């Protein structure tokens, strides 16, 4: 095994609690209860250990991180550890007062999710009346404070025709960056797959629209786009390679190579309550399970893209083929690719199954 890589990013899931009910929630089916959440002191230790390990960016996420009353202390601790501190929020549950306190604590960046450009549709998708307005208010406060803002759009069949309107909205909110992310089917989102799935024609139009928007708004806003998995020819290099670039700490302190890793039942995760982060990164069975590319079977084993996409996503391989070591079936070279094509063609018009705690 080559020298152990150093992680760059830490996703800190402060809580699984969230006021919204988004049908595409990527959190696992079994949410961790409030009583199991790490306290601010433990997070502080984790941030210091992460910085010593090489981590540069920390993403304070959830659930809705605003559900934590000690969010400001946690953010201050992250900054004190020297980490670039990003808040990933739904915008609901964080008051303008808290936003100011976070700014004072040294928060570096805010990411707010927007469900749609149309208020009624946005609130329907979030399963929360008034969410759209609240998100606007919070985004406006962040910008007023001088914090850089990223707007995150999760794209699926109900809003895929309005990407251009959503980019206009992000510009109106004075976002400096926009992240256009097609739904990825893990956790709760898997329950709503057929209801969320866009058609192939919609995806083709959306990809072209994003390219056009990039040209149109060059220099005004950075547009980052995550490709729609099920309609791709090649898989994504999930989390930049397993145990290579990033780690994820759940509300109760379990450390995962990616936020969906708990969907692979054979993995054993260590907890920050029992082990130092450095020990977990180097030695926990879950991190070493799929490090590198040696475990990959054909067609990856002889593929020149092996070091580009690392065989794709381990969770997706498991969820769609039953084998976490298999080539991600999103890849057109996978023997299971037909299954993905088949699933991508299933669109069902039915009510969402909202996520409720």
């Amino acid at each position, binding site marked *: 095994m080559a020298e152990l890589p*150093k992680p*760059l990013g830490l996703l800190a899931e402060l809580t699984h609690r969230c006021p919204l009910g988004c049908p595409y929630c990527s959190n696992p089916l079994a949410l961790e209860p409030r009583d199991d959440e790490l306290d601010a002191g433990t997070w502080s230790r984790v941030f210091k250990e992460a*910085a*010593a*390990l*090489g981590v*540069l*960016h920390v993403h304070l996420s959830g659930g809705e991180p605003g559900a934590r009353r000690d969010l400001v202390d946690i953010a201050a601790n992250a900054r004190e550890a*020297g980490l*670039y501190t*990003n808040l990933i929020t739904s915008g609901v549950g964080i008051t303008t007062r808290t936003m100011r306190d976070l700014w004072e604590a040294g928060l*570096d*960046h805010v*990411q707010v999710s927007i469900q749609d450009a149309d208020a009624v549709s946005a609130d329907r998708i979030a399963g929360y009346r008034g969410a759209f307005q609240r998100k606007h208010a919070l985004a406006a406060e962040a910008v007023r404070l*001088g*914090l*850089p803002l*990223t707007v995150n759009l999760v794209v699926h069949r109900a809003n895929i025709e309005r990407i251009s309107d959503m980019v206009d909205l992000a510009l109106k909110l004075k976002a*400096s*960056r926009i992240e256009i992310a097609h739904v990825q089917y893990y956790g709760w989102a898997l329950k709503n797959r057929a209801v969320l799935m866009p058609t192939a024609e919609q995806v083709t139009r959306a990809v072209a629209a994003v390219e056009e928007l990039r040209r149109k708004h060059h*220099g005004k806003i*950075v547009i*980052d786009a995550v490709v729609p998995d099920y309609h791709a020819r090649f898989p994504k290099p999930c989390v930049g390679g397993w145990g290579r670039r990033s780690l994820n700490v759940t509300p109760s302190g379990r450390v995962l190579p990616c936020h969906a890793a708990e969907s692979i039942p054979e993995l054993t995760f260590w907890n920050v309550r029992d082990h130092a982060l450095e020990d977990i990164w180097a030695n926990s069975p879950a991190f070493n399970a799929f490090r590198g590319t040696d475990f990959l079977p054909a067609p990856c084993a002889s593929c020149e893209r092996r070091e580009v996409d690392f065989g794709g996503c381990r969770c997706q391989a498991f969820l769609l083929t039953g084998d976490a070591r298999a080539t991600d079936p999103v890849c057109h070279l996978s023997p299971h690719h037909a299954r993905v094509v088949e699933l991508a063609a299933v669109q069902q018009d039915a009510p969402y199954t909202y996520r409720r705690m």
Partner: protein
Amino acid sequence: MAEADAIVDDAKPRLPRGVRLTNSEAQGGWVLLAPERIFKADPIAAEILKRCTGEATFAAIVDELATVFNAPRQRIHADVSKLLLGLAEKKLLEV
């Protein structure tokens, strides 16, 4: 902000909120951090960026670096301009 092709002498370059220069021992040196982006800063770039605090003028930064590196002012001027304009275009610096 209009894209400039030169930096005026009395400009006071600064890293905007959300862009931060930090020294990471574990990563082996200085890095410039921005939303979802990391740029390794070589020792010279780090010396330049450390001075972009919004207080010192561009001319003063060039003067100081010419002294520190004991190099011709004209060359330092060209190098600093190139770095700062490149960063400004990526919105990683305000000039």
